[in-house]
């Protein structure tokens, strides 16, 4: 099957998840992603390189499980950009690339002598996508960020939690994932624009911008109605205000740390739930219609929690599913990865071959394409693994020259 993006080459400085996750998508669709790392620091700018999880007791710069997960199907080369020769090589690579990607702090690439102006001198229609927490413009553009910082500043952390509790936030870097998704969109949009106009551009991507926009309706409630999200009783993020639903939440099951989500979209769902639960509290007049139930959600949640807490996941899920009520247990990683036919049948956990790690499973992509299906089969590159391949095939260097580059500390 043809690959959708096989005609593109990406000169890739990204790392962590927010950047590397983006170019992972491009590589899965056949783009040639050349990941460039610093040989002096053994690529450690990417803090995921060489840290766990590990498949076994072995440790090392090439064995990090997270790094492998985010860098499948990419090529990896090393360039010591403190040297002039490495800068010449990078210049040649840029000349033959469609896109330059990075998620450094503002100004790093510029300091190396490869800011947008220079990149454009090298290749006039180059697309340059910089991805950092606060962007390259604005009072906070020199500030540093990780996913949790982006989530905090942009309102997402605040919006996730229970009343009278600290923010629960997000137990992972949702905005590293999502920042990567917006980076994919930005790259593809710029490629589409270039195809139509012949014009490249510099895309300034700030993950805090993308994150703040995800609060859209709450922001309009503020700008239009003057209603803040910071108010009594808020946030209560397992409940549903848009649209109003009740009951709507995550309820305890029998056993330790077992939970199930239940949502009643309308009166039919509520009546079906009552038909299954069939306890006296259900006929409380306070629960007679949606408006009453919304006013009495604490009592409603208490009644439903008492019922679910005496039952197993299978019992509650099967009974409510049969009655047509939206329901799903909160799945643990092992349940959704190894025991859920939905993810296995979708092919969501492909196994890749990594040169040192060996065979290991990674996140796949959640879409199937009839004409240009993705492929994730090769593990992340070891440090400098494709130096010979890239320098020979792309730049036409000979074995002696490459040996010199190595002995001179250029690669």
């Amino acid at each position, binding site marked *: 099957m043809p690959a959708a993006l096989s005609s593109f080459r990406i000169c890739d400085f990204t790392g962590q998840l927010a950047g590397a996750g983006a170019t992972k998508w491009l590589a899965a669709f056949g783009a040639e992603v050349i990941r460039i790392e610093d040989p002096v620091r053994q690529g450690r700018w990417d803090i995921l390189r060489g840290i766990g999880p590990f498949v076994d007791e072995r440790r090392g710069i090439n064995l990090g499980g997270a790094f492998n997960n985010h860098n499948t199907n990419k090529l990896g080369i090393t360039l010591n950009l403190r040297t002039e020769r490495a800068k010449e090589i990078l210049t040649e690579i840029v000349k033959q690339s469609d896109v330059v990607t990075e998620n450094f702090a503002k100004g790093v690439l510029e300091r190396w002598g490869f800011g947008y102006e220079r990149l454009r001198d090298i290749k006039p229609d180059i697309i340059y996508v910089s991805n950092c927490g606060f962007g390259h413009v604005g009072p906070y553009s020199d500030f540093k960020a990780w996913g949790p910082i982006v989530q905090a500043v942009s309102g997402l952390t605040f919006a996730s939690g229970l009343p009278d509790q600290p923010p629960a936030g997000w137990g992972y870097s949702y905005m590293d994932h999502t920042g990567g998704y917006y980076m994919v969109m930005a790259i593809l949009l710029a490629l589409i624009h270039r195809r139509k106009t012949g014009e490249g551009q510099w895309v300034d991507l700030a993950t805090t911008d993308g994150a703040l926009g995800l609060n859209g309706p709450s922001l309009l409630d503020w*700008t239009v109605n003057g209603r803040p999200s910071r108010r009594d009783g808020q946030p209560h993020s397992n409940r549903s205000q848009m649209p109003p639903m009740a009951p709507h939440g995550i309820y305890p099951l029998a056993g330790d740390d077992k939970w199930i989500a239940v949502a009643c979209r309308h009166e039919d769902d509520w009546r079906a739930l009552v038909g299954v639960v069939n306890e006296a509290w259900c006929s409380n007049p306070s629960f007679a219609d949606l408006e009453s139930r919304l006013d009495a959600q604490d009592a409603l949640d208490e009644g439903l929690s008492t019922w679910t807490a005496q039952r197993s996941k299978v019992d509650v899920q099967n009974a409510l599913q049969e009655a047509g009520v939206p329901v799903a247990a909160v*799945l643990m990683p092992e349940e959704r990865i190894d025991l859920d036919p939905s993810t296995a049948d979708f092919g969501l956990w492909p196994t890749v071959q990594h040169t040192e790690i060996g065979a290991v499973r990674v996140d796949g992509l959640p*879409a199937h394409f009839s004409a240009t299906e993705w492929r994730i089969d090769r593990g992340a590159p070891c440090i400098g693994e494709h130096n010979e391949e890239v320098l020979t095939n792309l730049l036409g260097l000979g074995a002696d020259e490459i040996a010199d580059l190595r002995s001179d500390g250029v690669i």
Partner: protein
Amino acid sequence: MTALNGLRVIELASEPIALAGKLLADMGADVILVEPPGGDACRNYPPFLDDQPGEDRSLFWWHYHTSKRGVVIDLDEPSGRDRFRALIATADVLLEAQPRARLATLQLDYDNLVAHRVDLIHVAVTPFGRSDEKSDLPVTDLIVTAAAGPPWSCGYDDHSLPPIRGPHQAYHTASHFAVMSALTAIVHHGITGVGQFIDVSMHAASNVTTEAASYSWLVAGLTVQRQTGRHASVTPSGETQKLCSDGRYANTGVPPRFPAEFARLDTWLKQLELDTELPEAVFLEMGANWEGPFDLAKIGTDDTITAIFSAGRDALKLIASRLPAQEFFVGCQSVGLAVGVVNSPEEAFEDEHFKARGFHVEVYHEDIDRTITYPGAPYQLPASPWQISRRAPKLGEHDAEVWAEL
């Protein structure tokens, strides 16, 4: 010129894909939103303009349907299906999240539609994918999110409190993948002229958006446990969310770990005259003078490294308790530490940084003679800028205009 100028997208109105249509429309695609008679349910979602309900007053609707045109088609009527086919003949992309069997029953599935548009890109979003019978079960955003795993990682140290989901999390993530998929197919179509069918699973999308929860299990068979305001972790980690003097919180993310960071933090602590309140401040000086790599992997086993690392956390906690959250945030960043104030959405929106980046976008609503301030662009493409080209459509607002074009 906008990036997607000249591209026509037909969106069958549905909550899970509303953001996907907006992302394409705000980049210049001609997104035609197709609603059934009576309108899409989201028209009646709160909040409302001036808190008065009405099908054209939903701010939820306003936000997710900017830059789109709107038509009404009754797909349950033969004449409506004819109209839809005529529309598809002019379209580049169909974006839909219909129940799995619905379009086939109406003979409007991909196999039928390619007869009218041979190079159609059809993006179908379903709860569990096209091949999974579970896609026929009723779901909401919460249900998909729970089944896909994110709440397992989100919540509190106290596991007697329920796991937490982020608002609209599953639908947003599904929309992001729908857009990435559509754009990938559009790039391929631009080169080859070939369209295709794309099957996006909401459940799969959230499943691969859980960071370490997935790969800790995939790689090492380890299970993360949720913690208050920070990453779920296989082994418990120190708290990062600090309560500040004004009752608001700040997230300190990754604590100091480089000598220069320990040095600047030590200096700041002294400037604030708080060093005398923290006996452990001596370890900050040791961190500042550390030679060689500061190996975080030795936290918990090497007493000195553990003490230095802990002193960094303790210093931040002390400073946070004496400063308002915004001041703590800016102060930390000024000494080079990646710290974030926990803003509410409106506090973030009113911050000068976002205003300076042009994030406040004014849209004139001629029907109510008011200018409304919307959230701005997720990315800035200067040569092909994001823009809200029009307010969300009223029901059937562009019927005559679109049919005239056909």
